């Protein structure tokens, strides 16, 4: 049996709201959540990457898989990028040392998904993530979410797709079975849809864990740093 996961809850400075969000997620039946810190890299120069709040300050006592890697990302368990151009998407799928590739759902897709990078990502165990909260917020966004998710699912045949919320409001969270039903609208089979909220999340965690164990040293640090600067609007 695999547990349900939602690997994209947006981080807010309001600590109480974050706690209600976590409680709602737990109430809906999620056993694992990831809190997402969004960081937009500038096209020139460097911006400091935000430091995550230690989990011990958010909730008391929580077992967690720790990831030790490059200097900036050392504190994070998972690393995701949201590519905005086709070149970046290709690079993210084929070379970047990331765990999740986030798909744009709030605007028209800036490029087409090509078979080669999508297959490359599947072979490397990198997951694609679709967030559904925008679809609840607004009907235009809903159209974009459906279109973009459908074209992604068509390319990767429903495999390697994660469905997560991407919200900071408890009322925009939905239960795991609701989401797997929703994923059927994207063209995924019911088995793939259930994997999208459960076992694919587990694979991502294991992938992140393996990467951090296998490349615990300077080579990985160097590689990750180049990845960060090469993605002008990554993560």
């Amino acid at each position, binding site marked *: 049996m695999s547990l349900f996961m939602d690997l994209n809850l947006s981080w807010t400075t309001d600590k109480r709201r974050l706690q209600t969000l976590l409680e709602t997620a737990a109430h809906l039946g999620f056993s694992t959540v990831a809190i997402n810190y969004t960081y937009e890299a500038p096209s020139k120069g460097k911006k400091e990457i935000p430091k995550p709040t230690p989990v011990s300050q958010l909730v008391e006592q929580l077992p967690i898989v720790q990831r030790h890697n490059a200097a900036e990302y050392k504190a994070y368990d998972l690393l995701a990028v949201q590519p905005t151009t086709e070149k970046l998407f290709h690079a993210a799928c084929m070379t970047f040392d990331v765990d999740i590739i986030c798909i744009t759902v709030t605007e028209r897709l800036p490029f087409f998904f090509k078979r080669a990078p999508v297959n490359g990502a599947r072979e490397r165990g990198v997951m694609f993530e679709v967030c559904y909260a925008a679809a609840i917020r607004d*009907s235009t966004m809903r159209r974009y979410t459906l279109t973009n998710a459908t074209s992604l699912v068509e390319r990767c045949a429903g495999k390697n797709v994660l469905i997560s919320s991407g919200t900071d409001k408890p009322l925009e969270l939905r239960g795991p079975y609701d*989401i797997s039903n*929703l994923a059927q609208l994207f063209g995924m089979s019911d088995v793939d849809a259930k994997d999208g909220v459960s076992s694919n999340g587990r694979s991502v965690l294991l992938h992140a864990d393996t990467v951090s164990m296998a490349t615990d040293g300077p080579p990985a640090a160097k590689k990750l740093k180049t990845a960060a600067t090469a993605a002008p609007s990554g993560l």
Partner: protein
Amino acid sequence: MQPAIFERVVVKNSPVYQYMKVSLVLEHVQTKLTAVELKHLITTGLKSLYGEVGAAFPFDLLTFEEDTLTAVLRVYSRGLVRLWSSLTLLGFFQQQRCAFRVLQVSPYLLSLTGNSRDLTLD
């Protein structure tokens, strides 16, 4: 003591109806809502997601408890995915945020009754 005897029943034909037990969570807890308003809300959600033709399948609101905002819906099995997804994507009720929590889905109405967790002892 005699061991309990179990009988296994296998139903091979697909069920005609599916029953859903849902509850509506609203941003302002004190908001009151009637059964008609709830049905209208669901129908509006269906229409905004699937359009006139896609929303034209029958479903019924069997019961509605106004104090807990819990309802039981009956829908033909064919329409389940459509109804459920439109409930999932419903986010607003009269300019306030709302969310449908699907508590239970079953082809048998009997299994939605008699939840031992809902029992109130006198």
